[in-house]
């Protein structure tokens, strides 16, 4: 059994409206040191494999095909065995 944690967020150049709204809310709570906020989503997968290479390849394919929209989003994969 292996766990894959996929973090999906908007690409660097793409305006993140939710992040901006959160940043604004934080500043109204007087957290003045926050210079930028990006809101993403985390998808946690349990995989029935112990083969790290295969898991990495499979999850990458999942990200490309479904989990992220690569027109606007980037993804990062973390594997925990």
């Amino acid at each position, binding site marked *: 059994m292996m766990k894959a944690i996929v973090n999906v967020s908007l690409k660097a150049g793409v305006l993140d409206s*939710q992040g901006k709204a959160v940043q604004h809310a934080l500043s109204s709570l007087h957290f003045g040191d926050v210079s930028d906020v990006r809101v993403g989503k985390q998808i946690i997968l349990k995989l029935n494999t112990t083969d790290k290479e295969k898991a990495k390849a499979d999850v990458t394919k999942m990200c490309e095909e*479904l989990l992220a929209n690569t027109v606007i989003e980037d993804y990062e994969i973390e594997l925990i065995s």
Partner: protein
Amino acid sequence: MKVTILQFPGTNCEYDTQHAFESLGAKTEILWHKAESVPSDTDLLVVAGGFSYGDYLRSGAIAKFSPVMKAVKVYAKNGGKVLGICNGFQVLTEAGLLPGALKRNEHLHFLSKHHNLKVANNDNIFLEKLACGDVVNIPIAHHDGNYYIDETGLKELYENNQVLLQYCDKDGNISNPNGSVDSIAGVCNKEKTVFGLMPHPERAMEKLLGSDDGVKMLQGFLSA
């Protein structure tokens, strides 16, 4: 003229769309997403609005894997005419049949109101009954209508006259409700066979209900 209208779990504009096209004299059929082929007598395939699969993950992200979408891709590849309205537009971008993507509205609000749109290009069957610069009043109703495309993609859209409609005020001056790149409300593919827009022309068929500007738009498909 036969219009086939796709229905996913969560689609909610299929009957409005059916009513709109039938009022213009077209034959229609509603096609459940489990279908594995597009009816062969289809002249236009419409991906109707709504919230397919509850907008889970991203609007349109799950619908693109419905069995029927394989057939839709083949149909589109062979030059079949496709129109995606609202959630249908999102499905078509997710499926790669149209360029770009639809993000959450810039101000994070769900928008539901009439909005003016300016015709950017009319050298296509969808808008051929209108002139460039014409302003039409059409309802919008979306949360994820913020059209995004990168600079290279945008340049290509302009070069090929793929920008269909832009949000504007009643005088045709750009007025952007949702943060879309260049205030874009609708685009088509290079071949001008696949069309997508966030506004709902099928909800603008009767003056009594606020506008009948949708008639001229949908009629374009009927004369083709």
